[in-house]
């Protein structure tokens, strides 16, 4: 994919030093059960924030909150410097035009073929059909799935669906990408392919992203690998280096139990965290 076209608003936001995503004391519950409790964190421009934690800890809920798909019971969420609670439904739709989201189960439209799924957002924006076709091919080439352009989601494997979902999320060159368990339910080899795509997208486009994963191995791959544009492959950062833009957030039972860098996580003294990462 070509590099992200940074909008003037985004340039202004980056210059002002404001975070791209900001959760301020956010709580939400369903049926009397609190899912997230007083969650506060920020995601800076160009940062990759990995959300870790046991299943049922509120990670997917947090992701939907960040995209304004659900509203918190209390607290404030700011995305691109604007409070989501202050936005009307139409303003939220406009905001989401700058956000790409990869869902846990891909969430491809099963009545549309791969081309129409990937092109969906561009067609909604009435982009010229010729340009749509070019950009769809470019996005599918990026996820190495050009050959399935005419197939329907039901004809694809789980890994392929996930890759098409990534193509759909990145086609509009968003300023923020939300990955909800992109490797969930996939075999290790396919998971590695998906993580390589995430790394490639991060390093080529420098896009801010929030990623949920249950696999610690995937999280550490993101922190320790980079995309080599000359050789066009993902490789380990030399000298046991760590990507400085990759940070971690660990959630347990709706509370943040860790917010920091890769090194801070690996050197933590917290007994629960130690047990979790080991």
């Amino acid at each position: 994919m070509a590099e992200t076209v940074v909008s003037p608003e985004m340039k202004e936001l980056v210059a002002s030093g404001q975070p791209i995503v900001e959760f301020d004391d956010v709580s939400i519950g369903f049926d009397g059960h609190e899912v997230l409790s007083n969650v506060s964190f920020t995601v800076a421009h160009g940062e990759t924030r990995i959300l870790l934690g046991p299943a049922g800890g509120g990670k997917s809920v947090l992701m939907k909150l960040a995209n304004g798909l659900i509203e918190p019971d209390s607290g404030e969420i700011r995305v691109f410097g604007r409070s989501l609670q202050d936005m009307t439904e139409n303003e939220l739709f406009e905001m989401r035009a700058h956000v790409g989201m990869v869902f846990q189960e891909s969430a491809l439209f099963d009545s549309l073929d791969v081309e129409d799924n990937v092109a969906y957002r561009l067609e909604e924006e009435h982009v010229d059909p010729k340009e749509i076709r070019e950009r769809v091919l470019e996005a599918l080439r990026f996820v190495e799935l050009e050959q399935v352009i005419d197939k329907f989601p039901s004809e694809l494997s789980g890994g392929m669906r996930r890759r098409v979902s990534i193509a759909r999320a990145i086609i509009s060159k968003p300023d923020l990408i939300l990955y909800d368990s992109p490797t969930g339910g996939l075999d290790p080899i396919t998971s590695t392919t998906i993580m390589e795509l995430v790394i490639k997208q991060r390093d080529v486009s420098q896009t801010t992203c929030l990623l949920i994963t249950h696999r610690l191995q995937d999280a550490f791959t993101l922190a320790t690998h980079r995309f080599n544009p000359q050789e066009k492959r993902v490789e380990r950062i030399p000298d046991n280096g760590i990507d400085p833009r990759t940070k971690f957030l660990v959630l347990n039972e709706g509370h943040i139990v860790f917010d920091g860098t890769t090194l801070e996580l690996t050197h933590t003294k917290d007994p629960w965290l130690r047990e979790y990462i080991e």
Partner: protein
Amino acid sequence: MSFISPEAYAKTIVASVQEYSLLCGRAVANIFTRPRYTADIFTQMDSIGVGSLPIVVLTGFFTGCVLALQAAVSLKEFGAVNMTGELVTLSMVKELGPVLTGLMVSGRNASGMASELGSMKVSEQIDAMRALGTDPYRKLVTPRLVATVFMLFFLTIISDACGIAGGAFVSVALLKLKAATFFHTGYMSLEHGDVVEGLVKPIFSGFIIATIGCYYGLRTTGGTRGVGRSTTQAVVASSVIIILVDFLVTQLMIGIFGR
């Protein structure tokens, strides 16, 4: 087994009515603002209108047949078999055409909408649509609403015509009445108000079918089991409300036209 408190039950009902009203309001408001999904409206018209044509034609025709047979038995006692045309025509145009078409289309399409939207909901396709910047009410509900109201209107006219044709067939073939007598008495019995009544009802029924089908579809939870539950609830609710609204519209029309 735990029992829900009356207060919680009442709150649930009020919340459902509020949610349904909001859906209806948004679906109607979207007709007057851009963007409009015209291609989706035509797709739905094909699916709802053309797709329902066989069941509407068959139901209408055989309803007319049965109506003529049953009417003839009673009318014979009064020596008024010649009035069969009047009875069949009035019954079909005022009542049976609109209601049976509404119920048949409800069974076919309210369930279809609930299951389609319900499947999209449980597989996160609705969330994906919102995440891609599309309003699901505008993209999914409004085209179905416009298509159902528009097509049900014409399906009802077709059903009425088929019902009268069915009645004529039985009257001529089995009751040995003259076709001219059947059609003449039928035509002479109809007044302006009867036709208006018969054509107002499908507008309400179409609105109920689309909004109830979409409402239950969009509130689906609980996986495939939830989709099945939503489908059943959509058909039951829309059928009952169609008959209830039919009663109210009939009462209103009698008030306006005096018959």
